[in-house]
């Protein structure tokens, strides 16, 4: 049993499914059997339905077992010596699991392969190769590579990253900033969390590259407080990157500086909106700002600021490692590169699927998710978080592409796909959309602050079957006002789930 390595994830989902109990028994059994093994606590590969996913590496191949339970540990260790494939939890070589094998992983290629805090593991898998290239380029050349890649913001708005970076580069400022939006508040999304927990150095590397590209020497990661495990990992990763001089006054002896600080949010969904996030970072209430001025021109503390989502900054490492053209070759239309789809809600096989843009929703929910967890038929799919439309089956052949989704009055957003079976009450979902907006509105725009409260009341009247025609007309009128009269997506897009529920599932309102 020389050189045996066992991998057991310690990411939020694996822990939430009992990974620590598995780890405890594993330690006991390893000691009792006097095995020489190296137990690695890795990040997750994002195959969450198989968590805790235990992997045993033998002769260069990693064999997977899952979902593991504490009681199954002795049996798995026994089977390892005799007949691994005979064990009921045996899944075969990890690399051959079709859910994983068929993905096109660029950003998540390293996720789950090793200890997320091990710099050697990161570097052994091309970590910091993008940074190394960037250190040999001037600012404009780095921005050019990002522009050429066609990379668009992964947070939901899909704004071209190259244009944003160019604006910050071209705007004079005594102190520029890189702000990472890690306030991943949309229900059904966990890709940012997975990346931060499984491959935190990639985010750090992307932020350093962004700093070099625009001339910013200070970065902030604004992380939501609902992610305690990501916080622990990022704190350690930043400290280690600093100790190895990837961060600090002299990045790897280049003479270039980049400081990075982790800031924790305080439970406000609206702070995922970039201008509220900036206010929050400044120590204020997270109130949405009027644009213009764009944050790229007057952002944090009034200075030119890049605000990018976790996955946008992470993708930059691939762009700088392999070139803009390489990245652009993935995808379709104006949606270039890969999209991290997150399969969530009532799904049999929930998890992260990274694919080039262009796959259809149906392929995702049927081939990858395998239908519902409850075994009942799928009725509605909400794509793009709580501000995204609910789609009926007639829309599931829409390709995952920003423009295609906009074309059907929906949005791709951050790639969250939440599946509901036929027991869902769409009137209740529409009501929740308004209720959520009322709870989380920053309060700046009247249509959002008051309209959402009125929206709940009108939907309540519809649910009570009162004056259907008048209340429907009133609700649609309210949706128009919110869409047209709100500064940001919170008030402006809350009508999407409401309208789509009314349009596609009218039977739930009558």
């Amino acid at each position, binding site marked *: 049993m020389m050189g045996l390595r066992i991998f057991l994830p310690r990411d939020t989902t694996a822990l939430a*499914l009992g990974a620590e109990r598995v780890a405890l028994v594993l330690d006991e059994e390893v000691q009792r059997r006097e095995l020489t093994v190296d137990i690695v606590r890795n990040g997750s590969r994002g195959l969450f339905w198989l968590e805790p996913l235990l992997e045993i590496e033998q002769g260069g191949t990693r064999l997977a077992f899952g979902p593991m339970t504490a009681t199954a540990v002795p049996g798995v260790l026994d089977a390892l010596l005799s007949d691994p494939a005979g064990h009921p939890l045996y899944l075969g070589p990890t690399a051959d699991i079709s859910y994983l094998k068929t993905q096109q992983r660029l950003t998540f290629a390293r996720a789950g392969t090793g200890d997320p805090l091990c710099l050697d593991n990161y570097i052994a898998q091309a970590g910091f190769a993008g940074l190394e290239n960037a250190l040999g380029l001037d600012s404009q050349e780095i921005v050019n590579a990002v522009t050429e890649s066609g990379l668009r913001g992964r947070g939901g708005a899909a704004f071209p990253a190259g244009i944003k970076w160019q604006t910050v580069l071209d705007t004079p400022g005594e102190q520029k900033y890189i702000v990472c939006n890690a306030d991943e508040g949309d229900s059904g999304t966990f890709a940012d969390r997975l990346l931060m927990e499984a491959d935190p150095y990639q985010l750090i590397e992307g932020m350093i590259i962004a700093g070099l590209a625009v001339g910013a020497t200070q970065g902030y990661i604004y992380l939501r407080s*609902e992610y*305690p495990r990501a916080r622990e990992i990022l704190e350690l990763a930043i400290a280690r990157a600093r100790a190895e001089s990837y961060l600090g006054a002299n990045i790897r002896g280049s003479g270039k500086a980049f400081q990075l600080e982790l800031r924790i949010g*305080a439970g406000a969904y609206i702070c995922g909106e970039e201008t509220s996030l900036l206010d929050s970072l400044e120590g204020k209430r997270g109130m949405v700002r009027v644009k213009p001025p764009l944050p790229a021109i007057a952002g944090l503390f009034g200075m030119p600021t890049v605000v990018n989502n976790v996955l946008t900054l992470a993708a930059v490492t691939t762009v700088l490692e392999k070139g803009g053209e390489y990245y652009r070759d993935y995808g379709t239309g104006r949606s270039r590169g890969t999209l991290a789809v997150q399969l969530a809600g009532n799904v049999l096989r929930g998890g992260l699927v990274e694919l080039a843009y262009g796959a259809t929703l149906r392929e995702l929910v049927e081939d990858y998710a395998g239908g519902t967890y409850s075994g009942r038929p799928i009725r509605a799919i909400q794509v793009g978080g709580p501000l995204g439309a609910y789609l009926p089956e007639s829309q599931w052949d829409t390709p995952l592409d920003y423009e295609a989704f906009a074309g059907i009055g929906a949005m791709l957003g951050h790639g969250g796909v939440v599946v509901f079976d036929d027991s869902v009450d769409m009137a209740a979902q529409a009501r929740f959309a308004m209720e959520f907006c009322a709870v989380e509105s920053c309060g700046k725009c009247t249509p959002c602050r008051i309209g959402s409260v009125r929206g709940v009341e009108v939907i309540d009247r519809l649910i009570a079957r009162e004056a259907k025609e008048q209340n429907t007309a009133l609700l649609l009128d309210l949706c128009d006002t919110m869409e047209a009269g709100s500064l940001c997506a919170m008030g402006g897009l809350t009508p999407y789930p409401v309208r789509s529920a009314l349009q596609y599932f009218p039977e739930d309102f009558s």
Partner: protein
Amino acid sequence: MDDDTAAIITSCIEQYREVPGGLLPLLHAVQDKLGFVPPDSVPSIAKALQLSRAEVHGVISFYHDFRDVPAGNHVLQICRAEACQALGARALEVHAKSSLGVDFGGTTADGAITLEAVYCLGNCACSPSVRLDDQIHARVDATRLDELLADLGDAAG
């Protein structure tokens, strides 16, 4: 405010008064140490950061995380968001409220548990999710929630 509390608040202020945009980290630090942000700490925080008391109060009241009274011994957050709704979070919410005898924001009479709503814990592939202090639990139904709460009781007893 007793002397110990005042000393803690003073040390938090000293740690963050020069930090750009330091009010949120300062409030987090106070709450981490005391379990809440005492309303009578607002004047000293405001003065140190050259803000008005209204501004500091405004920040505390804006964010769901900050509390101006101590929580119970444990904080239980039930996710109310869509991915969890899709697998029974609404029923779980009803069960939690009735079995604990409190609404969201309330603390049980024995001071053991504060119940809160949360909107997404990022564990949406294995819903419904709850957070009990800093531990997130997946696939939680009424039975599982009762077990988690019973385990707390055992640990305390």
